[in-house]
């Protein structure tokens, strides 16, 4: 069973600051991996490297068969297989919700407008926002916008979904609706990597929890690991309530 994502000894520096100091982990098909750690531990950077939003200095990253560490990689081919959702949703403000979702299928997969619209409606129904298809992002709450962002990525039928602290910018009462969508996705067998601060969610949904500390993978284990941390650093992190 080959991994969907495998990182091997990845190093990444921004200028003179080394942020990733030899990161190694795997995520298998259908697996949900939660990456946790303090700010500055390198978790968001690692996620961005997986999707080639940052280039690594050394090491290997293979994602869905694409060699991401290869500088000659055709990025668009990689991104057809990987969907990513950002902390600040990044919806296109001048397009309606449906148009936001239809843009990529029509432009990249050359889908007809009618087919794209049907796809948009079905994927919106999956995230529970079918009736908002013709609204503009600014008319939606933060939680709704984030769900639209998830739908937008899902419409391209990726093999892997990445979530970069997607609930961190939301009011607490809105995180629930987003987490529910993510849980449904997980149950449906999607391979997912989520950088998150939601410990309860990670405990419940993640098959693998990866704790990062100072740019390295410090502890890896099943969700239960959070109840029984082995390393003092993870203990300290969990106690600090971050």
């Amino acid at each position, binding site marked *: 069973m080959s991994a969907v994502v495998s990182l091997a000894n990845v190093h990444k520096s921004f200028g003179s600051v080394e942020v990733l100091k030899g990161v190694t982990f795997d995520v298998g098909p259908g697996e949900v991996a939660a990456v946790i750690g303090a700010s500055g531990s390198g978790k968001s950077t690692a996620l961005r490297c997986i999707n080639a939003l940052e280039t690594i200095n050394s090491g290997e990253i293979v994602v869905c068969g694409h060699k991401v560490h290869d500088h000659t990689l055709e990025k668009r081919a990689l*991104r057809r297989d990987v*969907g990513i959702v950002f902390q600040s949703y*990044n919806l*296109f403000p*001048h397009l309606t919700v449906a148009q936001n979702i239809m843009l*990529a299928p029509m432009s990249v997969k050359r889908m007809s407008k009618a087919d794209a619209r049907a796809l948009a409606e079905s994927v919106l129904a999956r995230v529970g926002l079918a009736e908002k298809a013709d609204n*503009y992002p600014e008319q939606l709450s933060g939680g709704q916008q984030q769900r639209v962002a998830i739908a937008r*990525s899902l419409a391209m039928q990726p093999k892997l979904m990445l979530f970069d602290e997607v609930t961190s910018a939301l009011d607490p009462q809105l995180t629930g609706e987003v987490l529910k969508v993510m849980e449904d996705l997980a149950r449906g067998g999607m391979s997912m990597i989520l950088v998150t601060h939601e410990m309860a969610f990670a405990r419940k949904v993640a098959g693998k929890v990866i704790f990062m500390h100072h740019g390295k993978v410090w502890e890896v284990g099943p969700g239960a690991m959070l109840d029984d941390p082995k390393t003092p650093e993870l203990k300290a992190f969990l106690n600090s309530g971050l």
Partner: protein
Amino acid sequence: MSYTFDFGALLPFWPVFLEGAWLTLKLSALATVFGFVLGTLCAIGRADGPQWVRLLVASYVEVIRNTPFLVQIFLVYFGFAMLGLKVSANTAAVAALVVNVGAYTCEIVRAGLESIHKSQVEAAECLGLTRPQIYWHVIVRPAIERVYPALTSQYVLLMLASSITSLISAEELTAVANRIQSETFRSFETYIVTGVIYIGLSFLVRGAFSLFALVIFPRRRKLGTAI
């Protein structure tokens, strides 16, 4: 001061005034369209092109912004003659207007392009769109919407500046006014009326741009807010 105003002497010339106004509008409309295309291409070139393109566009913009339009018109007019091309005064006028407004459009659109947040482009890249697709759907369209008021003001100024083309004998409102005042000797009245017509045209052009915005920016039409 023993001057008696006689606007009545101008009454028979009403159709001539209107024709002049219409010519001004036509000239301005042509120059607006081509100037906008030129300016937008320059703005994209300056934002995203190779070093030599950026330098060329920057020089073009600086030269236009630091020399008078009158001198630019003369250079375009005599430039055509030098190249051996026989063009009508109106064609030269449109060419000069396009070159002039292209530079100002470039600066306005460039500010709009720079206001698009990097994260928008990132999101589009992650959806797999090509660079040209990203430019059109995610960068240029919202940028134009954002700078639309500035563009409108610029094109109203263009319409007013078209009066200068009368000095190379282009056919437009000021040229018409000059002829009328030389026939009637009612210079004061003629130029007052001309001024009033230009003010009216300014309102007309602004109104047209507002209506156009409602057509091409459905978001604005439905929500009534700026991006």
